[in-house]
């Protein structure tokens, strides 16, 4: 593996810091030649994965960190987001009608958005503990 093309950063488990990871991924995608539309898709997906890690994975525990790795490949960018939590369990597919009617809470869109915006995504336990969300986005949709 060409480690020169990997970037790692760690952000605190504080809401708002997901924007740092988001901007970092966007800069890399721009450098790789992604279109503006795909960069916007990537930004939202990375922000949502980090928010899940901060809020649901690490439970906003400020002693924990969220690790983000960007791996540049020929025609795609892989982004891994790791937390130190125990997993967030199964999240039901959100339903706007039920949310509008008040039957379901309005939140719960993060995973739906990630799945809708990237080409491939997996949610798995990390070998070192915690969980990892791996997203792959291609230069061409």
């Amino acid at each position, binding site marked *: 593996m060409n480690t020169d093309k990997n970037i790692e950063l760690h952000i605190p488990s504080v809401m708002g810091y997901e924007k740092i990871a988001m901007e970092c991924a966007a800069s890399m995608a721009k450098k790789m030649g992604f279109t503006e539309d795909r960069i*916007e898709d990537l930004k939202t997906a990375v922000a*949502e994965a980090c928010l899940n890690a901060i809020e649901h994975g690490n439970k906003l525990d400020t002693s924990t960190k969220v690790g983000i790795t960007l791996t540049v490949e020929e025609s795609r960018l892989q982004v891994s987001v790791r937390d130190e939590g125990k997993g967030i369990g199964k999240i039901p597919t959100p339903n*706007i009608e039920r949310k509008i*009617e008040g039957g379901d809470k*309005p939140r*719960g869109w993060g995973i*739906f958005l990630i799945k809708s915006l990237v080409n491939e995504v997996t949610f798995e336990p990390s070998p070192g503990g915690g969980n990892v969300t791996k997203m792959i986005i291609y230069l061409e949709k």
Partner: protein
Amino acid sequence: MNKDIQVSISNKDDVSILNIKGDVTAITGETIEDAYQKVSTAGAKKILLYFDKDGYINSGGIAILIGVASESRKKEQKIRITGLSSHFQKIFDMVGLTKYTEIFPSEELALKDF
């Protein structure tokens, strides 16, 4: 007041306009909800949400807007949206918010629709 967002209220005829500058997230949501409650309490039936094209909106912010859309239905208010970037227009469409509110390319066109 949250420094990541500024919401100002203005009126054009019988339309209340919420000018939303900055991030729309769970953290800033209270500022948007407060502005919405303020115009609702004043009796607004037509409300235009005017977003910042460069603003950051995340799933927490979308949840806030779903809450506003939900309440507006109960209060028989019309909500219209403008100022969104093409990316967030797509996101609002993906989550289904556009079933409950309409997005317009300009303030002028949004105001014309009410």
